[in-house]
Protein backbone atom coordinates (compact mmCIF):
# COMPACT_ATOMS: atom_id res chain seq x y z
CA UNK A 1 0.00 0.00 0.00
CA UNK A 2 1.11 3.51 -0.78
CA UNK A 3 0.26 4.78 2.65
CA UNK A 4 2.81 2.58 4.31
CA UNK A 5 5.66 3.98 2.28
CA UNK A 6 5.00 7.47 3.54
CA UNK A 7 5.22 9.17 0.18
CA UNK A 8 3.38 8.58 -3.05
CA UNK A 9 4.79 8.55 -6.54
CA UNK A 10 4.73 12.32 -6.77
CA UNK A 11 6.86 12.66 -3.68
CA UNK A 12 4.08 14.02 -1.49
CA UNK A 13 4.09 13.29 2.19
CA UNK A 14 1.23 11.14 3.41
CA UNK A 15 0.24 11.57 7.02
CA UNK A 16 -2.23 9.63 9.09
CA UNK A 17 -4.20 11.91 11.35
CA UNK A 18 -5.91 9.56 13.72
CA UNK A 19 -7.40 7.17 14.67
CA UNK A 20 -5.64 8.35 17.81
CA UNK A 21 -4.95 12.04 17.47
CA UNK A 22 -5.64 15.01 19.73
CA UNK A 23 -7.55 16.93 17.05
CA UNK A 24 -9.98 14.28 15.89
CA UNK A 25 -11.86 14.07 19.22
CA UNK A 26 -12.51 10.40 18.82
CA UNK A 27 -11.47 7.67 16.50
CA UNK A 28 -11.66 9.42 13.18
CA UNK A 29 -8.91 8.49 10.76
CA UNK A 30 -7.90 10.98 8.09
CA UNK A 31 -5.21 10.18 5.55
CA UNK A 32 -3.76 13.48 4.46
CA UNK A 33 -1.61 13.99 1.39
CA UNK A 34 0.71 16.91 1.97
CA UNK A 35 2.96 19.00 -0.16
CA UNK A 36 5.09 20.67 2.46
CA UNK A 37 2.51 22.12 4.82
CA UNK A 38 -0.14 22.39 2.15
CA UNK A 39 -2.90 19.84 2.03
CA UNK A 40 -3.50 18.17 -1.33
CA UNK A 41 -6.08 15.64 -0.30
CA UNK A 42 -7.96 14.52 2.79
CA UNK A 43 -9.39 11.05 2.82
CA UNK A 44 -11.50 9.95 5.77
CA UNK A 45 -11.41 6.33 6.85
CA UNK A 46 -14.35 5.52 9.06
CA UNK A 47 -15.64 2.61 11.03
CA UNK A 48 -13.47 2.53 14.14
CA UNK A 49 -16.52 2.99 16.33
CA UNK A 50 -19.16 1.56 14.02
CA UNK A 51 -21.66 -0.43 16.06
CA UNK A 52 -24.14 -1.02 13.28
CA UNK A 53 -26.92 0.64 15.20
CA UNK A 54 -29.17 0.33 12.16
CA UNK A 55 -28.85 -3.45 12.27
CA UNK A 56 -29.31 -3.50 16.03
CA UNK A 57 -32.51 -1.51 15.79
CA UNK A 58 -34.02 -4.12 13.50
CA UNK A 59 -34.31 -6.41 16.50
CA UNK A 60 -35.45 -3.80 19.02
CA UNK A 61 -38.97 -2.62 19.72
CA UNK A 62 -40.13 0.93 19.23
CA UNK A 63 -39.68 1.63 22.92
CA UNK A 64 -36.24 0.10 23.07
CA UNK A 65 -34.67 1.63 19.98
CA UNK A 66 -34.82 5.14 21.40
CA UNK A 67 -32.06 4.57 23.90
CA UNK A 68 -29.62 3.38 21.21
CA UNK A 69 -29.87 6.69 19.41
CA UNK A 70 -28.48 8.50 22.47
CA UNK A 71 -25.24 6.70 21.74
CA UNK A 72 -24.94 8.14 18.27
CA UNK A 73 -24.65 11.85 18.74
CA UNK A 74 -24.04 11.70 22.44
CA UNK A 75 -23.82 15.47 22.73
CA UNK A 76 -27.37 16.03 21.56
CA UNK A 77 -28.94 12.79 22.68
CA UNK A 78 -32.18 14.52 23.69
CA UNK A 79 -32.75 15.70 20.15
CA UNK A 80 -31.99 12.29 18.67
CA UNK A 81 -34.42 10.71 21.11
CA UNK A 82 -36.91 13.38 20.23
CA UNK A 83 -36.81 12.37 16.57
CA UNK A 84 -37.36 8.74 17.52
CA UNK A 85 -40.34 9.61 19.68
CA UNK A 86 -41.77 11.88 16.97
CA UNK A 87 -41.65 9.24 14.27
CA UNK A 88 -43.47 6.70 16.44
CA UNK A 89 -46.06 9.32 17.33
CA UNK A 90 -46.45 10.21 13.69
CA UNK A 91 -46.90 6.61 12.67
CA UNK A 92 -49.33 5.73 15.43
CA UNK A 93 -51.03 9.12 15.52
CA UNK A 94 -50.44 9.65 19.21
CA UNK A 95 -51.44 13.05 20.51
CA UNK A 96 -48.72 14.46 22.73
CA UNK A 97 -49.96 16.56 25.66
CA UNK A 98 -48.99 20.25 25.45
CA UNK A 99 -46.97 20.07 28.65
CA UNK A 100 -44.83 17.29 27.22
CA UNK A 101 -44.30 19.28 24.04
CA UNK A 102 -43.03 22.30 25.94
CA UNK A 103 -40.80 20.14 28.13
CA UNK A 104 -39.35 18.48 25.06
CA UNK A 105 -38.56 21.76 23.37
CA UNK A 106 -37.00 23.13 26.55
CA UNK A 107 -34.81 20.07 26.86
CA UNK A 108 -33.85 20.22 23.20
CA UNK A 109 -32.70 23.79 23.49
CA UNK A 110 -30.78 23.16 26.70
CA UNK A 111 -29.08 20.26 24.95
CA UNK A 112 -28.25 22.46 22.01
CA UNK A 113 -26.61 25.01 24.29
CA UNK A 114 -24.70 22.31 26.15
CA UNK A 115 -23.50 20.85 22.88
CA UNK A 116 -22.39 24.22 21.55
CA UNK A 117 -20.61 24.99 24.82
CA UNK A 118 -18.59 21.84 24.51
CA UNK A 119 -17.91 22.56 20.87
CA UNK A 120 -16.75 26.06 21.71
CA UNK A 121 -14.31 24.79 24.28
CA UNK A 122 -12.87 22.03 22.17
CA UNK A 123 -12.74 24.29 19.14
CA UNK A 124 -10.56 26.76 21.04
CA UNK A 125 -8.47 23.88 22.33
CA UNK A 126 -7.87 22.67 18.79
CA UNK A 127 -6.50 26.08 17.98
CA UNK A 128 -4.15 25.91 20.94
CA UNK A 129 -6.03 27.93 23.57
CA UNK A 130 -6.69 25.60 26.47
CA UNK A 131 -8.37 27.96 28.88
CA UNK A 132 -11.75 28.38 27.10
CA UNK A 133 -12.36 24.66 27.42
CA UNK A 134 -12.60 24.91 31.17
CA UNK A 135 -14.64 28.09 31.04
CA UNK A 136 -17.11 26.43 28.68
CA UNK A 137 -17.44 23.46 30.97
CA UNK A 138 -18.49 25.69 33.82
CA UNK A 139 -21.65 26.71 31.95
CA UNK A 140 -22.18 23.25 30.54
CA UNK A 141 -22.00 21.83 34.02
CA UNK A 142 -24.97 23.97 35.04
CA UNK A 143 -27.03 22.42 32.24
CA UNK A 144 -25.85 18.95 33.14
CA UNK A 145 -27.00 19.52 36.70
CA UNK A 146 -30.45 20.47 35.44
CA UNK A 147 -30.54 17.38 33.23
CA UNK A 148 -29.42 15.18 36.06
CA UNK A 149 -32.16 16.40 38.34
CA UNK A 150 -34.99 16.00 35.86
CA UNK A 151 -33.87 13.15 33.61
CA UNK A 152 -31.64 11.23 35.98
CA UNK A 153 -28.58 11.25 33.76
CA UNK A 154 -26.09 13.76 32.47
CA UNK A 155 -25.29 12.68 28.94
CA UNK A 156 -27.46 9.85 27.66
CA UNK A 157 -30.69 10.98 29.18
CA UNK A 158 -33.26 8.58 27.66
CA UNK A 159 -35.93 11.04 28.70
CA UNK A 160 -38.12 11.05 25.62
CA UNK A 161 -40.61 8.21 25.31
CA UNK A 162 -43.26 7.77 22.62
CA UNK A 163 -46.17 9.89 23.76
CA UNK A 164 -44.34 12.33 25.96
CA UNK A 165 -41.50 12.36 28.42
CA UNK A 166 -40.46 9.81 30.98
CA UNK A 167 -41.05 11.83 34.10
CA UNK A 168 -42.44 15.17 35.13
CA UNK A 169 -40.14 18.14 35.55
CA UNK A 170 -38.26 18.37 38.80
CA UNK A 171 -39.76 21.02 41.12
CA UNK A 172 -36.48 22.92 41.00
CA UNK A 173 -36.32 22.92 37.23
CA UNK A 174 -37.65 26.41 36.54
CA UNK A 175 -35.54 28.02 39.24
CA UNK A 176 -32.39 26.30 38.06
CA UNK A 177 -32.98 27.14 34.42
CA UNK A 178 -33.44 30.77 35.33
CA UNK A 179 -30.23 30.64 37.32
CA UNK A 180 -28.52 29.17 34.32
CA UNK A 181 -29.85 31.89 32.03
CA UNK A 182 -28.50 34.60 34.29
CA UNK A 183 -25.16 32.79 34.55
CA UNK A 184 -25.04 32.44 30.79
CA UNK A 185 -25.80 36.09 30.21
CA UNK A 186 -23.05 37.12 32.59
CA UNK A 187 -20.47 34.85 31.01
CA UNK A 188 -21.22 35.04 27.29
CA UNK A 189 -19.38 38.36 26.92
CA UNK A 190 -16.25 36.63 28.22
CA UNK A 191 -16.40 34.31 25.25
CA UNK A 192 -15.95 37.31 23.01
CA UNK A 193 -13.11 38.63 25.15
CA UNK A 194 -11.12 35.44 25.26
CA UNK A 195 -11.81 33.89 21.88
CA UNK A 196 -14.08 35.63 19.39
CA UNK A 197 -12.45 39.03 19.49
CA UNK A 198 -8.92 37.70 19.67
CA UNK A 199 -6.92 38.75 16.64
CA UNK A 200 -5.02 35.47 16.41
CA UNK A 201 -8.24 33.51 16.55
CA UNK A 202 -9.90 35.64 13.88
CA UNK A 203 -6.94 35.27 11.58
CA UNK A 204 -6.98 31.54 12.07
CA UNK A 205 -10.68 31.33 11.19
CA UNK A 206 -11.41 33.95 8.56
CA UNK A 207 -11.11 32.80 4.98
CA UNK A 208 -10.35 29.26 6.09
CA UNK A 209 -12.34 26.30 4.81
CA UNK A 210 -14.52 28.35 2.53
CA UNK A 211 -17.40 26.47 0.98
CA UNK A 212 -19.85 28.13 -1.37
CA UNK A 213 -23.59 27.80 -0.88
CA UNK A 214 -23.99 25.63 -3.99
CA UNK A 215 -21.20 23.30 -2.93
CA UNK A 216 -22.46 23.07 0.61
CA UNK A 217 -25.91 22.08 -0.66
CA UNK A 218 -24.42 19.56 -3.06
CA UNK A 219 -22.38 18.00 -0.29
CA UNK A 220 -25.51 17.65 1.80
CA UNK A 221 -24.17 19.81 4.61
CA UNK A 222 -26.69 20.83 7.18
CA UNK A 223 -26.95 22.84 10.34
CA UNK A 224 -24.35 25.53 11.02
CA UNK A 225 -22.15 24.17 8.23
CA UNK A 226 -24.80 25.08 5.67
CA UNK A 227 -26.14 28.17 7.43
CA UNK A 228 -22.62 29.56 7.53
CA UNK A 229 -22.79 29.64 3.73
CA UNK A 230 -26.04 31.59 3.82
CA UNK A 231 -28.52 28.83 3.02
CA UNK A 232 -31.58 28.72 5.19
CA UNK A 233 -31.93 25.14 6.37
CA UNK A 234 -33.13 25.18 9.96
CA UNK A 235 -35.60 22.28 10.19
CA UNK A 236 -37.22 24.03 13.13
CA UNK A 237 -38.19 26.85 10.78
CA UNK A 238 -38.81 25.23 7.42
CA UNK A 239 -40.44 21.96 8.48
CA UNK A 240 -41.53 22.82 12.03
CA UNK A 241 -42.13 19.97 14.41
CA UNK A 242 -43.53 20.01 17.95
CA UNK A 243 -44.28 23.63 18.88
CA UNK A 244 -41.47 25.35 17.05
CA UNK A 245 -43.92 27.09 14.72
CA UNK A 246 -45.44 28.91 17.70
CA UNK A 247 -42.17 30.12 19.15
CA UNK A 248 -40.39 33.28 18.19
CA UNK A 249 -36.80 32.80 17.22
CA UNK A 250 -34.56 33.74 14.34
CA UNK A 251 -32.75 31.43 12.04
CA UNK A 252 -29.10 32.41 12.24
CA UNK A 253 -27.48 32.95 8.88
CA UNK A 254 -23.99 34.04 7.92
CA UNK A 255 -22.89 34.47 4.34
CA UNK A 256 -19.11 34.17 4.28
CA UNK A 257 -19.05 30.36 4.26
CA UNK A 258 -15.71 30.21 6.06
CA UNK A 259 -14.86 28.77 9.43
CA UNK A 260 -15.52 32.06 11.17
CA UNK A 261 -19.03 32.20 9.71
CA UNK A 262 -19.77 28.71 11.00
CA UNK A 263 -18.31 29.72 14.34
CA UNK A 264 -20.51 32.81 14.55
CA UNK A 265 -23.60 30.81 13.56
CA UNK A 266 -23.10 28.54 16.53
CA UNK A 267 -22.39 31.36 18.95
CA UNK A 268 -25.47 33.26 17.83
CA UNK A 269 -27.52 30.10 17.87
CA UNK A 270 -26.87 29.74 21.56
CA UNK A 271 -28.44 33.16 22.09
CA UNK A 272 -31.48 32.10 20.09
CA UNK A 273 -31.80 28.97 22.19
CA UNK A 274 -31.72 31.12 25.30
CA UNK A 275 -34.45 33.22 23.74
CA UNK A 276 -36.62 30.14 23.19
CA UNK A 277 -36.05 28.96 26.73
CA UNK A 278 -36.92 32.37 28.12
CA UNK A 279 -40.21 32.32 26.23
CA UNK A 280 -41.18 28.90 27.47
CA UNK A 281 -39.82 28.67 30.96
CA UNK A 282 -42.63 30.64 32.57
CA UNK A 283 -45.32 29.26 30.29
CA UNK A 284 -45.17 25.54 30.86
CA UNK A 285 -48.81 24.41 30.65
CA UNK A 286 -50.22 22.18 33.35
CA UNK A 287 -51.38 18.71 32.50
CA UNK A 288 -50.04 15.30 31.68
CA UNK A 289 -46.45 14.81 30.75
CA UNK A 290 -47.16 11.62 28.88
CA UNK A 291 -50.00 10.45 26.68
CA UNK A 292 -51.62 7.12 27.37
CA UNK A 293 -50.05 4.64 25.00
CA UNK A 294 -50.49 0.94 24.44
CA UNK A 295 -48.03 -1.34 26.16
CA UNK A 296 -46.86 -2.72 22.82
CA UNK A 297 -46.22 -0.17 20.11
CA UNK A 298 -46.77 -1.22 16.52
CA UNK A 299 -46.14 1.06 13.61
CA UNK A 300 -48.49 0.51 10.67
CA UNK A 301 -47.06 -0.90 7.47
CA UNK A 302 -45.36 1.77 5.46
CA UNK A 303 -42.43 4.11 5.36
CA UNK A 304 -41.85 6.99 7.73
CA UNK A 305 -39.34 9.78 7.78
CA UNK A 306 -38.76 12.33 10.50
CA UNK A 307 -36.20 15.10 10.41
CA UNK A 308 -35.15 17.24 13.34
CA UNK A 309 -32.53 19.91 13.85
CA UNK A 310 -29.81 18.71 16.18
CA UNK A 311 -26.90 20.80 17.34
CA UNK A 312 -24.89 19.58 14.36
CA UNK A 313 -27.51 19.78 11.66
CA UNK A 314 -30.31 17.80 10.15
CA UNK A 315 -30.89 14.43 11.75
CA UNK A 316 -33.28 12.11 9.98
CA UNK A 317 -34.80 8.75 10.74
CA UNK A 318 -36.16 6.61 7.95
CA UNK A 319 -38.21 3.64 9.11
CA UNK A 320 -39.62 0.91 6.92
CA UNK A 321 -42.27 -0.88 8.90
CA UNK A 322 -43.89 -4.18 8.15
CA UNK A 323 -46.52 -3.57 10.79
CA UNK A 324 -44.72 -5.42 13.54
CA UNK A 325 -43.19 -4.34 16.81
CA UNK A 326 -39.73 -3.93 15.29
CA UNK A 327 -38.70 -1.77 12.37
CA UNK A 328 -37.98 -3.77 9.21
CA UNK A 329 -35.25 -1.39 8.16
CA UNK A 330 -34.13 1.75 9.85
CA UNK A 331 -31.77 4.37 8.49
CA UNK A 332 -30.33 7.22 10.48
CA UNK A 333 -29.33 10.21 8.44
CA UNK A 334 -26.64 11.70 10.60
CA UNK A 335 -25.53 15.28 10.05
CA UNK A 336 -21.88 14.54 10.71
CA UNK A 337 -21.58 12.00 7.90
CA UNK A 338 -22.56 14.46 5.21
CA UNK A 339 -20.64 17.32 6.78
CA UNK A 340 -17.51 15.20 6.87
CA UNK A 341 -17.79 14.46 3.16
CA UNK A 342 -17.28 18.17 2.50
CA UNK A 343 -14.02 18.24 4.47
CA UNK A 344 -11.86 17.18 1.53
CA UNK A 345 -13.35 19.89 -0.66
CA UNK A 346 -12.78 22.54 2.02
CA UNK A 347 -9.29 21.50 3.01
CA UNK A 348 -7.54 21.28 -0.35
CA UNK A 349 -4.90 23.95 -0.64
CA UNK A 350 -4.88 25.03 2.97
CA UNK A 351 -2.39 24.33 5.74
CA UNK A 352 -2.41 21.55 8.34
CA UNK A 353 -3.30 24.08 11.00
CA UNK A 354 -6.38 25.03 9.01
CA UNK A 355 -7.57 21.45 8.88
CA UNK A 356 -7.92 21.55 12.64
CA UNK A 357 -9.96 24.73 12.43
CA UNK A 358 -12.22 23.23 9.78
CA UNK A 359 -12.80 20.04 11.69
CA UNK A 360 -13.55 22.16 14.71
CA UNK A 361 -16.20 24.23 12.98
CA UNK A 362 -17.82 21.20 11.36
CA UNK A 363 -18.23 19.93 14.93
CA UNK A 364 -17.67 16.29 14.12
CA UNK A 365 -18.89 13.77 16.66
CA UNK A 366 -17.44 10.46 15.56
CA UNK A 367 -20.07 8.04 16.90
CA UNK A 368 -22.59 10.13 15.00
CA UNK A 369 -20.65 9.65 11.76
CA UNK A 370 -20.00 5.97 12.24
CA UNK A 371 -23.32 5.04 13.81
Amino acid at each position, binding site marked *: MVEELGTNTEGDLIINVGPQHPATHGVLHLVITLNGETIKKVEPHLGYIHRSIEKMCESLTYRQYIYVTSRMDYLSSHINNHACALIVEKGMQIEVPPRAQVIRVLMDELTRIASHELWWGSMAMDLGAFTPFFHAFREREAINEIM*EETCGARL*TMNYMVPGGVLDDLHPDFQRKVKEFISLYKRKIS*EYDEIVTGNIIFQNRMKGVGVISAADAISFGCSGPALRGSGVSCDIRKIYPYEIYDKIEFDEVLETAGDSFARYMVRIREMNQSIRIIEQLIDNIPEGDFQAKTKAVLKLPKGEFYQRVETARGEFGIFIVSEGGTNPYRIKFRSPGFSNLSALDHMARGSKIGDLVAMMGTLDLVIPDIDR
Partner: protein
Amino acid sequence: MFIVNYIKDVFNALKSLAIGLRRTLFYFTHHKEIITEQYPDNRATLHLADRFKGEVVMPHDENNEHRCTGCTACELACPNGTIKVVTKFDMTPEGKKKKAIDKLVYHLELCTMCNLCITACPSDAIKMAQTFEHSVYDRSQLTKVLNKEGSKIMEGVE
Protein backbone atom coordinates in the same frame (compact mmCIF):
# COMPACT_ATOMS: atom_id res chain seq x y z
CA MET B 1 -2.82 56.00 4.18
CA PHE B 2 -1.09 52.63 4.18
CA ILE B 3 0.94 53.63 7.23
CA VAL B 4 -2.18 54.74 9.10
CA ASN B 5 -3.91 51.44 8.40
CA TYR B 6 -0.80 49.55 9.37
CA ILE B 7 -0.55 51.29 12.70
CA LYS B 8 -4.28 50.87 13.25
CA ASP B 9 -3.96 47.15 12.57
CA VAL B 10 -1.15 46.76 15.04
CA PHE B 11 -2.96 48.79 17.64
CA ASN B 12 -6.23 46.88 17.28
CA ALA B 13 -4.41 43.57 17.41
CA LEU B 14 -2.64 44.53 20.61
CA LYS B 15 -5.91 45.80 22.06
CA SER B 16 -7.73 42.54 21.35
CA LEU B 17 -4.91 40.60 22.94
CA ALA B 18 -4.93 42.87 25.96
CA ILE B 19 -8.67 42.31 26.45
CA GLY B 20 -8.09 38.58 26.54
CA LEU B 21 -5.18 38.96 28.93
CA ARG B 22 -7.28 41.10 31.25
CA ARG B 23 -9.93 38.39 31.44
CA THR B 24 -7.45 35.63 32.23
CA LEU B 25 -5.72 37.83 34.79
CA PHE B 26 -9.09 38.32 36.43
CA TYR B 27 -9.45 34.57 36.86
CA PHE B 28 -5.83 34.24 37.92
CA THR B 29 -6.41 36.63 40.81
CA HIS B 30 -9.98 35.65 41.73
CA HIS B 31 -9.69 32.27 43.35
CA LYS B 32 -13.33 32.30 44.41
CA GLU B 33 -14.25 31.49 40.82
CA ILE B 34 -12.54 28.13 41.03
CA ILE B 35 -15.04 25.37 40.35
CA THR B 36 -12.95 22.28 41.02
CA GLU B 37 -14.74 19.63 43.05
CA GLN B 38 -12.33 17.51 45.05
CA TYR B 39 -14.32 14.39 44.50
CA PRO B 40 -13.26 11.64 46.86
CA ASP B 41 -12.86 14.18 49.65
CA ASN B 42 -16.30 15.69 49.29
CA ARG B 43 -18.21 12.43 49.46
CA ALA B 44 -19.94 13.54 52.64
CA THR B 45 -21.39 16.66 51.06
CA LEU B 46 -21.88 15.27 47.59
CA HIS B 47 -25.44 15.82 46.46
CA LEU B 48 -26.87 13.43 43.92
CA ALA B 49 -30.18 14.09 42.24
CA ASP B 50 -32.86 11.77 43.58
CA ARG B 51 -33.74 10.69 40.05
CA PHE B 52 -30.17 9.80 39.20
CA LYS B 53 -30.04 6.46 37.42
CA GLY B 54 -27.17 4.56 38.95
CA GLU B 55 -28.14 0.91 39.03
CA VAL B 56 -31.24 -1.24 39.33
CA VAL B 57 -32.01 -2.44 42.83
CA MET B 58 -34.88 -4.32 44.41
CA PRO B 59 -36.06 -2.77 47.68
CA HIS B 60 -36.72 -5.18 50.52
CA ASP B 61 -38.66 -4.32 53.65
CA GLU B 62 -37.68 -5.22 57.22
CA ASN B 63 -39.21 -8.71 56.90
CA ASN B 64 -36.90 -9.42 53.95
CA GLU B 65 -39.82 -9.26 51.57
CA HIS B 66 -39.84 -7.81 48.07
CA ARG B 67 -42.59 -7.06 45.57
CA CYS B 68 -41.38 -9.07 42.58
CA THR B 69 -43.82 -11.58 41.17
CA GLY B 70 -41.44 -12.95 38.56
CA CYS B 71 -43.58 -11.82 35.62
CA THR B 72 -40.46 -11.21 33.44
CA ALA B 73 -41.82 -7.89 32.16
CA CYS B 74 -38.49 -6.27 32.92
CA GLU B 75 -36.60 -8.99 31.11
CA LEU B 76 -38.72 -8.45 28.02
CA ALA B 77 -38.44 -4.68 28.21
CA CYS B 78 -34.67 -4.66 28.45
CA PRO B 79 -33.03 -3.79 25.14
CA ASN B 80 -29.75 -5.57 25.78
CA GLY B 81 -30.42 -8.61 27.92
CA THR B 82 -29.36 -7.09 31.19
CA ILE B 83 -31.97 -8.78 33.35
CA LYS B 84 -32.55 -12.51 33.62
CA VAL B 85 -35.41 -13.78 35.77
CA VAL B 86 -35.02 -17.30 37.12
CA THR B 87 -38.34 -18.53 38.43
CA LYS B 88 -39.31 -21.36 40.73
CA PHE B 89 -42.59 -22.68 42.06
CA ASP B 90 -43.47 -22.18 45.70
CA MET B 91 -46.20 -24.04 47.51
CA THR B 92 -48.83 -21.79 48.99
CA PRO B 93 -50.41 -22.77 52.36
CA GLU B 94 -53.44 -23.95 50.44
CA GLY B 95 -51.24 -26.43 48.64
CA LYS B 96 -51.33 -24.66 45.30
CA LYS B 97 -48.28 -24.07 43.20
CA LYS B 98 -47.33 -20.43 42.86
CA LYS B 99 -44.77 -18.87 40.57
CA ALA B 100 -42.08 -16.87 42.33
CA ILE B 101 -38.59 -15.71 41.61
CA ASP B 102 -35.64 -17.80 42.49
CA LYS B 103 -33.09 -15.27 41.33
CA LEU B 104 -33.31 -11.96 39.51
CA VAL B 105 -29.92 -11.72 37.85
CA TYR B 106 -28.85 -8.25 36.86
CA HIS B 107 -25.82 -7.62 34.66
CA LEU B 108 -24.64 -4.17 35.60
CA GLU B 109 -21.90 -4.34 32.98
CA LEU B 110 -24.52 -4.48 30.21
CA CYS B 111 -26.95 -1.97 31.67
CA THR B 112 -27.38 1.37 29.93
CA MET B 113 -29.68 2.90 32.56
CA CYS B 114 -32.51 3.40 30.07
CA ASN B 115 -35.17 2.99 32.75
CA LEU B 116 -37.36 0.74 30.57
CA CYS B 117 -37.45 -2.09 33.12
CA ILE B 118 -38.58 0.26 35.88
CA THR B 119 -41.47 1.58 33.78
CA ALA B 120 -42.35 -1.92 32.64
CA CYS B 121 -42.59 -3.41 36.12
CA PRO B 122 -46.26 -3.78 37.07
CA SER B 123 -45.67 -4.17 40.80
CA ASP B 124 -42.97 -1.54 41.41
CA ALA B 125 -40.57 -4.20 42.55
CA ILE B 126 -37.42 -2.61 41.19
CA LYS B 127 -36.13 0.92 41.18
CA MET B 128 -33.07 2.92 40.29
CA ALA B 129 -30.53 3.52 43.02
CA GLN B 130 -28.40 6.64 43.22
CA THR B 131 -25.08 4.82 43.47
CA PHE B 132 -22.39 5.58 40.97
CA GLU B 133 -19.14 4.08 42.20
CA HIS B 134 -19.42 0.84 40.31
CA SER B 135 -15.80 0.03 39.60
CA VAL B 136 -14.64 -3.38 40.76
CA TYR B 137 -11.56 -5.47 40.14
CA ASP B 138 -13.31 -8.32 38.40
CA ARG B 139 -16.03 -8.16 35.80
CA SER B 140 -17.92 -11.08 37.33
CA GLN B 141 -18.62 -8.94 40.41
CA LEU B 142 -20.86 -6.78 38.25
CA THR B 143 -23.33 -9.61 37.78
CA LYS B 144 -25.65 -9.19 40.70
CA VAL B 145 -28.58 -11.07 42.16
CA LEU B 146 -31.12 -8.47 43.15
CA ASN B 147 -33.30 -10.43 45.53
CA LYS B 148 -31.72 -11.12 48.88
CA GLU B 149 -31.01 -14.55 50.27
CA GLY B 150 -34.17 -16.17 51.63
CA SER B 151 -36.43 -13.30 50.68
CA LYS B 152 -40.00 -13.83 49.66
CA ILE B 153 -42.76 -11.90 48.04
CA MET B 154 -44.80 -9.42 50.03
CA GLU B 155 -48.36 -10.25 50.98
CA GLY B 156 -50.93 -8.94 48.61
CA VAL B 157 -48.70 -8.27 45.63
CA GLU B 158 -50.02 -9.97 42.55
